[in-house]
């Protein structure tokens, strides 16, 4: 069957900068914004953009990711002629099987899957960004410009530019220079890690890169620079709107806090729904002595304490007299009575004992150090977890 464009979603990275939160699960299914997991954003964007074949490349701790995606039904991607397909590394006859050794290598190893659909274009996505984007719009521009590769870019403050892949473009948006994390950036257009390639071109570059010794087999480090060097047409597709990388504890916390300002990203918009797989839970209950302000609460929560400036995923319980401020409580975690949670991320099913104290408000505005309790971790009653401290759960393995 032929498809004009299919998507490949890179979801295999460990997300090691999220430490405790990804010690047991892959980054793309980290809970986000109450109702969501990070991967809901690219999956929903695909479904909303009319892209109905999505290959999800998994590698690191795929168990929960695989069961979360399932048949793709929550995103309307459970269709017979395509839909969502999990693509783990595999063994092939004769040759030894190998892990994905880079983003480009992951796609290279799945050339067979892509060829099944004989697509004209391939959209490459990653599982660690929060944004709403119409990929079909980008695809139209890709075609109109006759580009070989289109890269979504967003303007960033110049002082932040050294953290990104930076594009320099001519006045028509064609890229003449690409620098990965430049010390002295000469542009403020950062790559968002979203690429549309003309498949024939990309296929050739992937095969060539695979053969070249010493290549890191990475899109940003190898494929894009090689294409640029060979004079291929690279076009920068400007994106305006909300986009955040949530690859670190701080950025994950900040992006969750952004969800408290519904004007930054409109998740109520019925024309572009972000969908998720929801557990079966009753409505959330707010107790007699509870107080909730400037917060997000999800179904299945039971709040009896005070919650301010915080994001609560489903099935969280907050005991009487507990105070939660500027914190993220992931699904199923339990905050004991009288506990004090400030500037913290509490992982899935973690249990914070009564009267415990986790995290501290910053000294001044910039010194925010988030305390993190990993999934399934436990804090004994009355115990303290310092600002910036990271708590892993003991034992257990999936």
């Amino acid at each position, binding site marked *: 069957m032929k498809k004009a464009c299919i998507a490949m979603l890179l979801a295999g990275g460990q997300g090691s900068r999220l430490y405790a939160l990804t010690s047991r699960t892959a980054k793309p299914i980290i809970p986000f*914004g*109450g*109702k969501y997991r990070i991967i809901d954003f690219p999956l929903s964007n695909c479904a909303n953009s009319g892209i109905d074949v999505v290959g999800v490349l998994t590698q690191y701790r795929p168990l929960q990711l695989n069961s979360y995606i399932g048949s793709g*039904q*929550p995103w309307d991607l459970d269709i017979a002629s395509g839909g969502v397909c999990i693509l783990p590394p595999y063994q092939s006859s004769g040759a030894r099987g190998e892990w994905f050794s880079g983003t480009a290598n992951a796609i290279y190893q799945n050339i067979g899957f892509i060829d099944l659909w004989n697509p004209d274009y391939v959209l490459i996505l990653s599982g660690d960004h929060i944004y709403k984007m119409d990929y079909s719009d980008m695809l139209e521009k890709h075609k109109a410009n006759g580009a070989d590769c289109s890269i979504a870019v967003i303007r960033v403050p110049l002082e932040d530019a050294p953290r990104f892949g930076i594009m320099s473009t001519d006045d028509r948006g064609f890229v003449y220079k690409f620098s990965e994390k430049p010390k002295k950036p000469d542009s403020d257009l950062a790559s968002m890690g979203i690429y549309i390639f003309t498949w024939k071109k990309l296929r050739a570059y992937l095969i060539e890169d695979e053969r070249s010794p010493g290549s890191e087999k990475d899109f940003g480090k190898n494929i894009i620079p090689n294409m640029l060097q060979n004079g291929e047409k690279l076009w920068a597709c400007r994106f305006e709107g909300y986009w955040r990388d949530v690859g670190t504890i701080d950025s994950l916390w900040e992006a969750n806090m952004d969800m*408290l300002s*519904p004007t930054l990203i409109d*998740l*109520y918009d019925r024309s572009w*729904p*972000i*969908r*998720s797989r*929801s557990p*079966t*839970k*009753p*409505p*959330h*209950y*707010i*107790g*007699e*002595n*509870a*107080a*909730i*302000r*400037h*917060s*997000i*609460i*999800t*179904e299945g929560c039971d709040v009896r304490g005070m919650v301010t400036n915080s*994001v*609560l*995923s489903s099935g969280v319980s907050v005991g009487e007299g507990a105070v939660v401020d500027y914190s993220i409580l992931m699904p199923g975690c339990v905050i004991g009575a009288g506990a004090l949670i400030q500037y913290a991320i509490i992982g899935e099913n973690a249990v914070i004992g009564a009267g415990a104290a986790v995290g501290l408000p910053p000294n001044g505005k910039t010194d925010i150090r988030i305390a993190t309790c990993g999934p399934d971790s436990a804090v004994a009653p009355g115990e303290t977890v310092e600002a910036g401290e990271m708590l892993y759960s003991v034992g257990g393995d999936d």
Partner: protein
Amino acid sequence: MSDMHGLIYAYHASPSLGGFTESRTSASLPFCARYRLIDFALSAMTNAGIRNVGVVMQHDYQSLLDHLGSGKDWELSRLSGGLRLLPPFGIRGSHIGEYRGCMDALSAVQTYIDRILEDFVVLFRGDLAVNLDLHAVLDAHLRTGCEITAVCTENPRRGTSGACFVPDEAGVSREMLFSDSVPKGAVQSIEVYVITKALLVRLIDWSRANGRGHFHRDALAHYLRTGGAVGVYRHRGYTPSICTAADYFNANMAMLRRESRGDLFSDARPVYTKGRSSVSTYYGENASSQNSLVADGCYIEGELVNCILFRGVRVEKGAKLHNCVVMQDSVIGENAALSYVISDKYTVFSKGLVLSGNSRLPITVPKCKII
């Protein structure tokens, strides 16, 4: 594979529910912030591993069809069997008109019932809010050896047929009493039965031959008169009967109590409902909220006390809601003050509006109204 087949009555619209059943049956009445009443019957069946479920409907079933879809949300969208929607089969010459009672309804779908392969059928009122363990009911049914077992509550309730039984030590009753004057130790049917398929077919045949339309006063009474016996299964959890607007209001408010809520919602037997992709609920800087149940997708900047809010409700700045049930996608404008109000879907209360009912006579506002 389950040996039970489910049949849910969803054709009835209680006339005392006012506007809420104008365009829907009682079974598709929204309840407890995110459910429809029929979710309880369907979930009980799914949780007991029942894979074949028929929903008996007659008219005003648009809302029900929209809610049920393929049955996917209750895991009843199956390659064989699964959910079957049963409007009246318009067989030429057969009785068509308002169903007088369950026997008329069952009779209207008899060709479906004839093809049931399971030995046992669960007859379930579609407008009950109850979390039943149907495995346990079947166990009780098999223990007594009766052909039919009634699920009963010890608390007398209004609004249902009022059929009561006085079970002996073995949990079997050979007579049925109605409503007011029942002796001590009597239990009242909640109108959920496990019945052998053979007896069900016999009762339908008898009712049709004798022109009888009701289950209790006709078919079951006949069965008991001719030597039959009814097994009794006692259900102890909260089981409201929702027949009037006040019943409806009270049953919703009861969900604010932990014990009643625990009776209807448990992790062991979850209640499934139609999915809807909504965001989590947002509480604004000046929001205030106590003793309330709130579904996803709401946007709350005002004050809530003792309220039930369905998905997608918007409470604007300064609005005060006390003792209200607000169905999905309604908007309460700035500084509006509502107390004891039940509002149907898509209702808009304009800025500054003041509306007060009382607990015995809550104000009901029909669908899509702008006040």
